[in-house]
């Protein structure tokens, strides 16, 4: 009897891997759990904008959503290795990533923002970062954006696994760069002495990446259809208003 349970467990464990390409109704979503207010943990409960969006997608598409939290820099590798099916962590569409993954439509349109310690008026945007030390999250698109600046070699870029806000507040670095929406939210909600420095300097579009294979394509199409439906019935706007008091899910009409 015991052996049969053991055998069943072994079979279950073996078939859980990415090797088996079967119609699956579970979507394993990777996120860092450390990017306020998109994905964060409070009182042991995973929450945030991304969590709400993915739960809505799951309901719309009839998918069971399983969240897996891991360090941000490990997320892309986990997607490639098949440990997870997609990443909901403000993944910006870049040409490099588009070559490797299939993306859904963008569900957040945002800008890159420089943030500095409160009272540091020396820095008023990306152009004043010359000769300064700037923190970014390791593996994030903001690191790439900084390295592409014409004066990139004059900026001392420091990559972090986490806690860039804290090191900026402590004055260990002069500024950090992250998306505009979460920056504004961090300044509003956290006790850290921080301020926005100037205007956003680049438009970024965030979407959900999937592996470029048959299973990934199928899942991408299902999730993308769900996003379209959630956009049309106003759910995306509603979730955005809940976390940001504004709609960040579509392009500003100008």
């Amino acid at each position: 009897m015991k052996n049969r349970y053991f055998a069943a467990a072994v079979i279950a464990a073996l078939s859980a891997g990415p090797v088996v390409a079967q119609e699956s109704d579970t979507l394993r979503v990777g996120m860092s759990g450390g990017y306020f207010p998109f994905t964060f943990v409070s009182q042991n409960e995973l929450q945030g904008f991304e969590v709400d969006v993915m739960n809505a997608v799951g309901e719309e598409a009839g998918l069971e959503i399983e969240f897996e939290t891991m360090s941000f820099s490990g997320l892309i590798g986990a997607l490639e290795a098949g440990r997870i099916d997609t990443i909901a962590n403000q993944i910006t569409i870049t040409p490099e990533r588009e070559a490797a993954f299939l993306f859904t439509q963008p569900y957040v349109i945002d800008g890159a923002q420089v943030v500095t310690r409160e009272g540091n008026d020396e820095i008023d945007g990306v152009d004043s970062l010359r000769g300064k030390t700037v923190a970014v999250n390791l593996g994030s698109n903001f690191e790439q954006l900084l390295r592409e600046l014409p004066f990139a070699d004059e900026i001392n870029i420091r990559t972090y696994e986490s806690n860039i806000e804290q090191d900026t507040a402590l004055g260990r670095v002069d500024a950090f760069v992250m998306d505009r929406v979460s920056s504004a939210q961090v300044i509003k909600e956290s006790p850290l002495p921080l301020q926005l420095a100037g205007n956003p300097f680049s438009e970024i579009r965030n979407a959900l990446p999937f592996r470029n294979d048959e299973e990934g394509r199928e899942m991408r199409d299902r999730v993308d259809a769900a996003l379209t439906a959630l956009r049309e019935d106003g759910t995306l706007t509603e979730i955005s208003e809940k976390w940001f008091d504004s709609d960040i899910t579509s392009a500003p009409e100008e």
Partner: protein
Amino acid sequence: MRALDLDYMLGLVPVILGYVPLTLFMAVMAMLMALILASMLAVERVFRVPVLDWLVMLFISFFRGTPLLVQLFLFYYGLPQVLAFLTQINGVTAAIMGLTLHFSAYMAESIRAAITGVDRSQWEAARSIGMTQWQMMRRIILPQATRVAAPTLVNYFIDMIKSTSLAFTLGVTEMMGAAQKEAAGSFLYFEAFLVVAIIYWIIVEVLSQGQKRLEIFLNRAYAR
């Protein structure tokens, strides 16, 4: 200086305590496997089996000569690129395996020292009454070596409990990972890391009391 947010800290205590079983599970599993592996390595080092001895020395040299964090990363993020089936291993298993290999290298050395530390007369006496090598080890040498090795082995166990905090770099939400995530949401870093530090401290203090009792128990034959 701002005041500590005590309410937040109190609220965090049950959250972090919820991860104590996972931390202890990883440490106890790794300790049991490391004890077995280290004993085998140590016995080999005492008897110096040809060829095998060279491999054991290489093993010990590598796992003592490189940091645990490097070993965990090599094992969890690096090796799967070469051996695809390793992607099936989850973070908890990888952490336990990493801790086992790392600490068995150290523990082997202290067990070996304890074995060779047993007085020559004991070995000779055992041989003179016709004991086999296995009987001698089991009945004469190891019981005496255990007493000598026990304090250092418990120290390695304490070190192991604290080293499980590195598992969060493999995506395992254990005590440290939970604290890190709570801090990333609340930005109350000092409070979050202080709570997790105090809980580790209490666990280790409790173990230290157990260590004292164990030493008294093992020394009872020598008490004067």
